[in-house]
């Protein structure tokens, strides 16, 4: 039997079945089309401007390594005129970062890019190992995620850079869409799919050029380009909503490879369906204190090669909170939802009943301001990082005898 030829060049032997659509391609054509698609994403969304200084959030993992490699290639090939810098965060997890930071250092040499490493200890006075020592293994990913998000932005600011690109891929975005559906968090759902996050109010713009790239193709690309990356997962990563969503996505991908992209598409479309007023409809927000640990401030946290997973037991915590809410709800007469439902289907004018809890469904709209302590953008007086730090610092005397 003659070997299957590449569907694109029709001359070389097809060695790769594209995970995205099962097209059979040769190695060279796969690498070309992968890069072309990223290029298209970049140009169609006008991600960069010539001369822009861009920091690549580099963890040493496959996603950020591929991102650095692809951006370098495209920058040279298409003359983006970008000034690319690698920016790494050292969370201070022994045995995890030590090795991956070595990888990033090698990447810096390989790609001839300057490298800046920012440590949690520098920024917050705490390494992740110390955090774990204090609060235990449960829930520490919240700290890590919150700290990291700011760390990248602060590191960029230090370097005078206004744009950070991260290696989030299509799987990550799809995962976030499903996760936010499971969490019932419409505001995050509407934010998470956009390629650029951090609006005019924030000093540092963030984008994810690999948003439409399949994780499996990123691995293939790294493999065939023989990229030097580090593949160990965060040793503290627990199971949670994200883990649950991730395993679901993997199953869906096996059933229908296009499912990942289809979820991204759904997520983008649904973000336009989110009513403007209901900013946060997560189960915990109706009654004041949220039982579940404070979630990561924005769309996607980052945890090394795997993206930050929210604390273990989060699902159970939310379940509990929802049950409590329901118990309270029973004590009220649910006029609002009945009327809303009536209104949705018939265009009669609503009956004149004074609605006591009319506005209760729509939580207060988040207003973006700045943290009073560190000046970082936040929808609260004190940003999450500072809140978390306060809690940590209270406990410090106990561990530092």
């Amino acid at each position: 039997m003659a070997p299957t030829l590449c569907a694109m060049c029709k001359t070389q032997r097809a060695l790769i079945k594209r995970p995205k659509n099962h097209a059979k391609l040769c190695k060279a054509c796969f690498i070309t089309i992968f890069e072309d698609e990223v290029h298209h994403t970049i140009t169609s969304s006008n991600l960069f401007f010539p001369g822009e200084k861009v920091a690549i959030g580099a963890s040493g993992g496959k996603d950020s390594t591929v991102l650095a490699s692809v951006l370098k290639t495209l920058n040279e090939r298409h003359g983006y005129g970008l000034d690319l810098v690698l920016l790494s965060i050292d969370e201070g997890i022994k045995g995890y970062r030590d090795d991956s930071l070595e990888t990033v250092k090698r990447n810096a040499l390989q790609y001839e890019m300057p490298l800046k490493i920012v440590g949690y200890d520098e920024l917050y006075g705490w390494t992740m190992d110390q955090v774990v020592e204090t609060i235990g293994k449960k829930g520490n990913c919240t700290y890590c995620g919150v700290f990291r998000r700011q760390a990248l932005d602060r590191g960029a600011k230090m370097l005078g850079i206004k744009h950070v690109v991260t290696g989030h891929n299509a799987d990550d975005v799809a995962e976030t869409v499903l996760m936010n559906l499971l969490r019932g968090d419409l505001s995050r759902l509407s934010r998470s799919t956009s390629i650029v996050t951090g609006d005019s109010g924030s000093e540092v713009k963030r984008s994810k050029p690999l948003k439409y790239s399949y994780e499996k193709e990123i691995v293939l690309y790294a493999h065939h380009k023989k990229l030097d990356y580090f593949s160990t997962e965060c040793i503290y990563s627990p199971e949670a909503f994200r883990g649950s969503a991730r395993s679901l996505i993997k199953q869906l991908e096996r059933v229908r490879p296009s499912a990942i992209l289809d979820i991204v598409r759904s997520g983008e479309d649904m973000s336009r369906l989110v009513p403007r007023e209901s900013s946060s409809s997560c189960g915990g927000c109706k009654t004041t204190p949220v039982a579940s640990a404070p979630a990561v401030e924005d769309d996607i946290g980052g945890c090394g090669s795997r993206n930050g997973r929210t604390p273990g037991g989060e699902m159970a915590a939310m379940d509990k909170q929802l049950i409590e809410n329901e118990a309270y709800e029973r004590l009220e007469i649910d006029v609002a939802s009945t009327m809303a439902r009536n209104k949705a289907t018939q265009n009669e004018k609503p009956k004149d009943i004074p609605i006591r809890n009319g506005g209760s469904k729509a939580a207060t709209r988040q207003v973006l301001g700045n943290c009073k302590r560190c000046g970082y953008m936040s929808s609260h007086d004190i940003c999450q990082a500072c809140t978390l730090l306060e809690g940590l610092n209270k406990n410090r005397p106990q561990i530092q005898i």
Partner: protein
Amino acid sequence: MDEVTKPAVAGGSLVRPCTKCWAQEATLDSRSHAVCRDCFAKFISTKCIKQIAILGKETRAPGGPPAASSTGASTSPRRYLLGLSLGVSSSVLLHLLNENVEFQLAKGRNAPFELTVVHIDVSSSLVPTSTSTSTSTSTSTSTASAPAAALEKYRQRYPRFDFQCVPLSAIFGLRTVDWSKLPDVQNINTTAPSPPSQDQNQQQEQKLRQLFDGLASAAARTDVLRLLVRHVLVAAARDGGCQALLLGHSTTALAELTLAETAKGRGFALPWLVNDGLLPVVEYEYHDSGTAAAARNSDGPAATAASMLVYHPLRDALRKELVTYATLTAPPLTALISDAPDAAVATSSNGGNGAGAVVSHKDLSIEEVMVRYFAEVETNYASVVANVARTTGKLVRLDNNGTGTGEDGNGARCGLCGMPLDEQGDERWRGELGEAKDDQLLSSSGRICYGCERSTRG
């Protein structure tokens, strides 16, 4: 559960008194409360009746007297159609509706509504032509099909209602599907090697089987099947002069639907699919009255004729609660319910899926993945399941212009699923994703939605 303050006397002698009535032994767990059988059953029926009451207000004849007046002579009786899959949820819904009618009649009132129960028989159309290894039905259409027999048992138990068994092939008589947009279906008439002796019915069945054989995957077959069943149900409701179509979806089923449709790229249509309300129905004009003949190719083949109220009265009950409820009725509903866990979902080509059986992923549908996933979530985190459906309920129904609600049915709709087309989203997607040369999906004609393209051209 309403926490009733514990009466001083009652419940004292019980080992584990029901936390609701304090009068009986609690034998069941209902949302982390120990309850007795009666209170559990009442809890479920209240959830259903609440929704039926909302629908009742919705379908009140305009200008008629308030529903409270018992002798509503001037209001014509409400008429609903219940889609019965023969699974647990829709069977429970049927039982609850019957209970509701009996309750009203016992109080000397008129029946609150008339009900037609329709089962769409998909049994013969889904057996692949090549592998007719299934248990009994596939070829012999002369004997009554298994679903028809099953339906007979329902008919005997609920004689008050009108029961119908409609074959899925009835879809070919409908004008609500734009067949010209289904590439594999257009040629079925010409390519069908059907012996001349076959009667019309068998030809239709044959055609249907070819339609499904032409779809690329189990995921696509299950998806299209669900859409076709919906079309036939809506048509039956319209033909029967019904004001609303009732579906048995539980909270869990709606959560599954939400995530499944998201995974199939129909996020834009979710508010139309999951929420209760008015669903516009589009009809396409055909040159001849022939069934699968080409629809007119011009831009305006559609005549937006009508709309149908679609309601999910069990939207506040979990599937596991309905499964429990089915054992509590006298006699238990379990005797009626067919083996498939939920026929609406489990009817993909691999037959009634053995629960937990290991199947190749190629033979799984997106729906089945979701059923498995939520079965697990429901066990441990029931409120999370409920929250998914509630969240989807907050999404806004947009029409394809991106503004306002498209409840009136203005604007183009998908020729297969009937949902609004998301032209804005299509445009953006094409722009951002780029033109992969081999990808036909992106060169959409704009008359079929993204999700339906995936399933038909997949």
